[in-house]
């Protein structure tokens, strides 16, 4: 009886660990400029956070998904940007490159449904913003 209870607890812990670490992360590359253009409708779910940034227009340049946990998953995106992901949702290493040049390396814990904005990458007209969101 007691062993069965221990097994159930272990299964619950494993299930919880799986829930905590598994998921699909969406990756969106956004171009923010001061030109008039408004918000891309494909960014409506994150319009609140993007709207807090001081730009007039937000356009979606590229998007992809990454299955977590990830093992050195490399995503080539528009305008020469490359994103490399490695790890679990609770400990995800992210590396962003531009035309082979490393720009940013960061390690983060991502919460489900709460976007992480990595921004400030310059363009001629504005900034590149990378939006990561675990669904």
């Amino acid at each position, binding site marked *: 009886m007691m*062993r069965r209870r221990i097994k159930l*607890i272990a299964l619950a812990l494993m299930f*919880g660990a799986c829930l*905590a670490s598994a998921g699909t992360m969406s990756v969106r590359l956004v171009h923010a400029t001061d030109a008039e253009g408004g918000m891309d409708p494909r960014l409506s779910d994150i319009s609140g956070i993007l709207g*807090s940034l001081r730009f007039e227009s937000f356009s979606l340049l590229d998007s992809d998904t990454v299955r977590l946990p990830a093992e050195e998953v490399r995503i080539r995106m528009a305008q020469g940007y490359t994103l490399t992901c490695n790890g679990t949702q609770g400990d995800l290493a992210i590396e962003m490159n531009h035309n082979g*040049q490393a720009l940013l390396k960061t390690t983060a814990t991502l919460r489900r449904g709460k*976007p*992480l904005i990595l921004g400030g990458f310059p363009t001629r007209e504005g900034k590149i913003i990378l939006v990561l969101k675990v669904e």
Partner: protein
Amino acid sequence: MKNMPWREIEKTLRETGRDDVPVRDSDAFWAAFKDRAEGETRNEPAPAPVVLFPAWLKAAACFAVIVTAAALLIPAPSNNSIVDAELSEITAIEVAAAHGEITTDESAEGTIVWVHGLELEDAGPNQIKAFDVAVDHSAVTIMNDESTNSTILWIHGMELK
């Protein structure tokens, strides 16, 4: 019986003429018996039924069955070290999800692992554990926006060659 004076008895019977007692045949005897028995009834109390298992024996048997069943159902405490060695033992534990205190109780009857405050749902904002900007920049701002449940890492003054 062998010591009886049979000869004298026989002689006496002959002298008294009692040796010629008329003998009826069996048919006549039973016919006369049935005639006398006609109309007569035999009114004797019926014997009590035979009791194979008296009440006290049944009660004792039931009691014995109950005691035996109870003895089989109640686990006997074990002082055998071999049996005790089969109890579960927690050698290491890691809880991946957010949680509070972990309580373990290993007694003679079993092992309990209790994780307090286990949160299967994501809670709190994202967390930037570490970052490294590889190119020239002026500043980095990290901000958690509670109103939109978002986290922003913004690199100021980045220059791309």
